[in-house]
């Protein structure tokens, strides 16, 4: 019986030691900027280049680097915001930033861009425009990517198809041709608005130009959704298109059972690394008919709560132009927002990674055909209101009319709500 007392004693002693140990740790507060990146933990060498370049201008400021996965990124960021310790420089994907910008959480960098023309001139104006909210600039591109159409040439040959589809209807008919057994013809990623080019290609607008009302409930839209639903039911369109995130669609395409994949550029290296059969001869990269695409670029933005805005801006410039941008491009195999740097990057990729060049080429074409990037304050809420209803129609739960009508109601309600 005594041993239990001894055990308890020992345990408690040990416990108190641990308490002491851990409690004696703390954080040191010095002059620092915190940078929160979006799921690029492997990007280390380049990041350190940024830091050393930054410290040449601001030796007194230390850089703290954080990186979070997309699914937890906003959880972390917003918790930090509430706690008043928001990361100063943030790397954001999609429309998430609109929420923050509209609520006044981000720093307006318009004047910086006006001031540093030598920097601003290097950046593609169309892409810079993706981070303008109510006439103010909030972000600059860290790396650029937009959706394109990958197609499995082997399956095309099998189905007796020569080239990529030239029109939207051809896209569907091609998909239909290739679909049988475990094989499906077409698949798209669906997070953010990545599937929207399918709608834009058919001239459908989500919102009225003033972004005040829903504009998508038109006969054309109904017809299109019906088409898509049919194709999905018949297996021409793989159902993962409407349910999966990115792992599953890319994995499925890599398995060689999907004819066409509508995805963003980084997907290419992912499924290439997963399948030996993928190379220039077997996988084509082209535009969706009409050249429409949804940008999926990442931007650097600055939190309103930043202590040293000028220093933060300097860091942003280092990271998104010149040598810093080049480091990022090489480190993540992406193009940057810096025209000059992209020239160098292309020559680098032709040497090191020729397979990726045709894919990246598409990223700089049809910059006038970007869609799915409306600067609507409630972007995320609109998405949440719209997409589930769309799924209803696409997966045959509701008729296209009803689904779009309901979606319209919901979206309008979101837009009217305070």
């Amino acid at each position, binding site marked *: 019986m005594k*041993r239990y007392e001894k055990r308890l004693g020992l345990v408690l002693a040990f416990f108190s030691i641990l308490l002491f140990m851990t409690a004696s740790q703390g954080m040191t507060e010095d002059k620092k900027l915190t940078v929160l990146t979006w799921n690029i933990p492997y990007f280390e060498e380049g990041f350190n280049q940024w830091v050393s370049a930054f410290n040449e201008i601001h030796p007194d400021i230390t850089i703290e680097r954080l990186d979070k996965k997309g699914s937890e990124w906003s959880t972390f960021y917003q918790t930090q915001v509430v706690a008043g310790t928001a990361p100063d420089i943030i790397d954001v994907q999609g429309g998430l930033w609109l929420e923050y910008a509209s609520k006044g959480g981000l720093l307006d960098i318009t004047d910086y861009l006006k001031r540093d023309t030598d920097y601003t001139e290097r950046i593609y104006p169309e892409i810079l425009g993706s981070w303008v909210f109510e006439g103010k600039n909030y972000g600059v591109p860290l790396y650029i990517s937009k959706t394109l159409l990958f197609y499995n040439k082997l399956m095309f040959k099998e189905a007796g198809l020569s080239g990529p589809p030239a029109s939207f209807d051809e896209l569907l008919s091609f998909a239909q041709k290739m679909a049988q057994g475990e094989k499906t013809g077409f698949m798209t990623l669906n997070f953010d608005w990545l599937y929207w080019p399918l709608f834009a290609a058919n001239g459908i607008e989500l919102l009225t130009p003033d972004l005040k009302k829903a504009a998508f409930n038109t006969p054309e839209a109904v017809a299109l959704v019906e088409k898509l639903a049919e194709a999905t039911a018949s297996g021409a369109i793989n159902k993962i298109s409407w349910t999966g995130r990115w792992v599953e669609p890319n994995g499925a395409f890599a398995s060689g059972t999907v004819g066409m994949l509508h995805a963003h550029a980084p997907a290419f*290296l992912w499924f290439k690394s997963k399948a030996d059969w993928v190379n220039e001869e077997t996988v084509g990269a082209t535009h969706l008919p009409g050249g429409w695409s949804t940008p999926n670029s990442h931007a650097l933005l600055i939190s309103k709560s930043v202590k040293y805005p000028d220093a933060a801006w300097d860091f942003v410039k280092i990271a998104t132009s010149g040598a810093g941008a080049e480091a990022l491009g090489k*480190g993540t195999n992406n193009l940057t927002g810096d025209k000059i740097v992209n020239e160098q990057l292309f020559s680098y990729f032709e040497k090191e990674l020729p397979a990726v060049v045709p894919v990246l080429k598409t990223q700089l074409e049809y910059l006038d055909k970007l869609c799915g990037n409306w600067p609507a304050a409630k972007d995320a809420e609109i998405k949440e209101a719209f997409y589930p209803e769309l799924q209803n129609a696409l997966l045959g739960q509701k008729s296209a009319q009803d689904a779009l009508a309901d979606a319209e109601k919901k979206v309008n309600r979101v837009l009217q709500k305070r």
Partner: protein
Amino acid sequence: MLKSIFINRYTMTFTVTIVVALLWNLFILFNDSGILSGRVVDRNNQPVADARVVLSEKTLLVTAPRDEVKTDQNGYFRFEGHRLYHLYLEAMKGDARSSSSREVRLYFKGQNKKLKEPLVLGSDR
């Protein structure tokens, strides 16, 4: 009584794990001089003298040549002191190249290894 506290299956498992780990590290300590040796032959299985052998670290993101040596008259080559655990070897002489860069994966950084299969020169196209 004390025995029951210090010698029970929890502590035992823990200690055993530690010991195994230590042994493993000891083994590493004596086998991580980063020596990688092998030989280069041509298609008729003849050794190839002073062919360039390039050792490169290659992940999906970085493809960086890290070291390079020449083969001796018997076609043998030997790298020393690399700190890689996943690397690729490629032999070349003049315009002849080894079929495809040979992937080598090791159990720890700089593990000493002797390639059984020689790199075959000019066996492609």
